[in-house]
């Protein structure tokens, strides 16, 4: 029965933060328009949950993340392995991938808007782009770090190229691929919020940026807290278990 204590330890800091927030706003240290009271934010959040506007925006944002992952991860892993098969090509393409990596995210937005116009295509493009290059780069690096002995061993035992790919390269690169996916969600999620502020009219980014136009700080805070909670939930429930599982299953295999 460890988890109740862990839960208490995890929630206590937030409880204290809310108390401080309540005291500060109640004492009138900050104007209501700059920092609304906690109960005001809860009320706004509740109202938005009831009229469905919160859910629409959450689903819009999460849908883009899911779409970005579903499109990009298979493509990126495939491309990464394909390039990694040839050591020379990999050495040549690694700096290229690294360049696009460093460029990924929000910097593509003006070009995306020129090409696809304002709307969900541009925003999704940002997400797809960010995930693709990070996962591609990490797959490439992962494949390159698989010790060549394993490759030679499978070849010597008469393994075909297919065996090599599915039983040596992909499993060997798996920890790196998963780390790439995890990082890409982190970077992609941030880029997505920023892109939604600029280029579309749905999603959590739009929600908070639009609220800013009307000085609705309570709506902004509802959005910020939602963004944080979604990220924590994804990290705790999806990414960390995934990473732990791959590392246990495939990671830290030391070269003989």
């Amino acid at each position: 029965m460890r988890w109740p204590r862990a839960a208490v330890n995890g929630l206590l800091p937030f409880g204290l933060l809310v108390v401080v927030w309540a005291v500060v706003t109640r004492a009138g240290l900050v104007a209501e328009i700059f920092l609304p009271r906690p109960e005001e934010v809860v009320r706004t959040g509740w109202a938005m949950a009831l009229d469905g506007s919160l859910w629409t925006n959450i689903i819009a944002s999460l849908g883009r993340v899911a779409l970005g992952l579903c499109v990009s991860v298979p493509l990126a892993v495939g491309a990464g392995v394909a390039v990694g098969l040839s050591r020379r090509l990999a050495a040549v393409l690694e700096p290229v991938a690294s360049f696009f990596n460093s460029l990924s995210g929000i910097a593509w937005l003006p070009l995306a808007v020129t090409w696809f116009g304002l709307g969900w295509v541009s925003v999704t493009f940002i997400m797809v782009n960010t995930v693709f290059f990070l996962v591609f780069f990490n797959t490439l690096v992962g494949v390159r770090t698989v010790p060549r002995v394993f490759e030679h061993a499978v070849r010597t035992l008469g393994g075909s190229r297919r065996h090599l790919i599915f039983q040596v390269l992909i499993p060997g690169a798996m920890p790196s691929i998963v780390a790439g996916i995890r990082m890409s969600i982190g970077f992609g999620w941030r880029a997505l919020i920023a892109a939604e502020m600029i280029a579309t009219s749905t999603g959590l980014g739009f929600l908070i940026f639009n609220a800013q136009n009307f000085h609705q700080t309570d709506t902004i805070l509802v959005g910020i807290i939602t963004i944080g909670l979604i990220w924590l939930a994804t990290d705790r429930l999806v990414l960390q278990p995934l990473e732990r599982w791959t590392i246990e299953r495939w990671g830290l295999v030391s070269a003989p």
Partner: protein
Amino acid sequence: MRETAVTWCLLLAGFLAAWSVAAATLPVPSYMLPSPGAVLAAGQDLVVKGILPTYIAESLRRMVLAAVIAFAIGVPAGIALGMSRRLAEFAYPLLNFFQSVSGIAWLPLMLVWFGFGERTILVAVNYTVVFPVALNTLLGVRSVPRIYVNGLRTLGAPRWRIARDVILPGALPSIATGMRLGLAYGWRALIAAEMLVGAHGLGFMIFTAQNFHLTARIMLGMVVIGALWLVLDYFVFRPLEQATIERWGLVQR
């Protein structure tokens, strides 16, 4: 190595040639796909007018400032919190939460607080950098084996000596990782903030170029943004991380 460089040049030449041909033959307006020549011309134009150097300097200045401030706040905070187990347990969920809400998500609120201007950009970028640094410092401090701390304590060292001689060196690899990650987030946040707030800088440049369909200028800006980060990463952060990991980390030779 030389072979790689040659292949690289060939690849680049092939890419540029394909791009030129595509730009010349594809039935799309030139603002959709400007030729490489147009991008170069845009670059020359921006350099001659002095816009590009000014904006690069502006963006870099903000980034350096953010790095310095984040380092000055994040590292001491992480060490102070990490040195006590209970404090660390208390602070970790908070730091993790605030790290996960990127600075850009706070931007609307910061706009209400600080208005459209330099201050909002700086606060947003600093926020983005400081939390990964503090969080990783804390994790680094926690990962220093107790036995070293106890060893020094047994020898009668005061708290500040333990912090300086055991905790700080022990946490350095983790701090370097935190800095690199934080600045990577921060650079992107800076570009986004410059687009949204619109006060000079490279993000502002490519964003306004979009309004006037100056696509060549956008592409040039992107190349500069990517190249700048690459140069910083390769020549500053990566050697730093490597050096700390080799010097103090778990590399066994």
